[in-house]
Structure formats: structure tokens, C-alpha cells
């Protein structure tokens, strides 16, 4: 079973992301939720994860800082990360790309967009 950590300060956004992931091939995954980057790091340190899906704009440790810490961590570096954001200017996108994110998706997301992003991370994923 795959383990997916979802980080977003909005409970609605977390639910929406989870539902999209469930119907695009991760129906049997274990989902763990975090409301900011710090919580996400704690969840990632507790147990290995197969995917992190994170917002950019969160109170405290935001998505960019979260990615910086993941990239700097020998244990977490290499974890596939999808960034789902309302913002994401060119400078942020360039930094996220250099930090190794697997994809940057703009809100509002839809299942086809999520399915496309997942196919690059989990080629065996079937909708």
C-alpha cells in the first residue's frame, strides 16, 4: 500500500486532493494529512512516504521552505513531490523545479490533470 502525505492549510483542499488522488489510481493508498509544512515534515519522519502533495501558501513552514528542507534531507531527498497551488510565480516555479519537484499543478485541479501528473510518478497507476 502506498503512503501519501497531503499538506494544505485548508481542510477542504486536503479533502479535494485526496478525492482526486483516490479516483485517479490511488484508491488503496493510505492518506496522511498535514495543515502546514512543519506537520508534513513530522509525518514524513514518522514513516516513509511514496508521495507528498503540498500547497505552497501555508502558515508557518510554507511549501517552498518545505521543499528546501526535503531537498536538504538525505533521507527525504528523492521523495516525489507534487505542488498544487493557487500562486506559483515564475521565480517560485523555477526554484521548485531546481529543488526537484515532480510537478506543479494550478488550482482548481481536476482528476485528468492529477492522473497525468501521477502517471509520471507511478507508471503502474491505473484509473
Amino acid at each position, binding site marked *: 500500500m502506498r503512503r501519501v502525505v497531503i499538506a494544505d492549510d485548508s481542510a*477542504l483542499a486536503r479533502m479535494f486532493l485526496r478525492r482526486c488522488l483516490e479516483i485517479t489510481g490511488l484508491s488503496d493508498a493510505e492518506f496522511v494529512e498535514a495543515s502546514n509544512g512543519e506537520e508534513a515534515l513530522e509525518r514524513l519522519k514518522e514513516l516513509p512516504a511514496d508521495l507528498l502533495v503540498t500547497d505552497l501558501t*501555508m502558515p508557518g513552514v510554507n511549501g517552498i521552505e518545505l521543499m528546501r528542507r526535503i531537498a536538504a534531507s538525505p533521507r527525504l531527498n528523492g521523495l516525489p513531490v507534487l505542488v498544487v497551488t493557487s500562486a506559483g510565480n515564475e521565480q517560485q516555479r523555477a526554484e521548485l523545479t531546481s529543488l526537484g519537484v515532480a510537478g506543479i499543478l494550478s488550482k482548481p485541479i481536476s482528476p485528468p490533470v492529477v492522473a497525468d501528473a501521477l502517471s509520471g510518478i507511478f507508471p503502474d497507476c491505473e484509473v
Partner: protein
Amino acid sequence: MMSETLNKDELKEELFESLRDTLETMAFAEVLPDNNDSLFQISQDTEIIWSRVAIHSEKLKSAELVLPLELAQDLADTMYAGMAPEEAGTVFDTVAELTNTLAGKFMLSLGGKAGDFFLDVPESGEGVPALGEGAVVSQCVVDEIHPVRITLGVS
């Protein structure tokens, strides 16, 4: 002052399109234009809530969504498939996320015209906020009966 590249009518149109796409994608809601100031003609007993997200950019400074509480509850019920948590913050969280989403979509729709930007975490409240000087206002009707106002604060 807005430059010629940020025409007020274009901004109103893009605001409307951003809200329509956001509500259709996330809540399957029907959004139509409204030119009748309906938000200010409804009963004073109607509870109104709002959410605002600060935009850090050269020319635009905020996006605000104002809507009836009843509509916000309907949207939350739809998005949670009837299983919305019975917590006081659920409706405000829903409106904040919708505002955040439509603001980002709106800014991206402008391409480079508005310059580089980033968004703050949204804030929410009750009542109808006053309009700031020079604000760009777009009004619409959701699901045929609910008036909604989107306001863009400009620098």
C-alpha cells in the same frame, strides 16, 4: 493607477471567468453575470460572509469574495459530498479556499500583465465589506438565486 495594459473591463471579465471556472470545477455550480447589484437588494436578514486574499504584486493588492452564508453552506455540502464536518470553521475554510483558488487563477489569466505575484493566506469574516477606492467589482448570480460579489483591490 492602472496602466493601459490592465483595462478595468478586462479585469472584471477575467474575475468573472475565474470565479465561474472555480465554482464549476470544484462545486458544479452555475455562475451567470449579474448587472443588478443583487447583493445589495436582498433581505437585510440574509447573512453575508466574505473572504479576502492579499495579492503581493506591483498593481493589484487583493481579491475578495462576498456571498450569502446559505450559498457557502450549499457549496461546502456539495464539495464534501454531503459529509461536511460540523465545525464552525468549515464554511469559512470553504470560502477561503475558493477565494484563494480564484485569485490564483485570475492572476495567472493575466499572464505577465500584472507582473510577478504571490498570495497570502486568506482571511474571512461576516458582513459586507466596504469597497476600497478604485476597486474593480464583478457581480454574478450562482445557482440562479444567490448574488455574489468579487472585488479586486488595486494599488
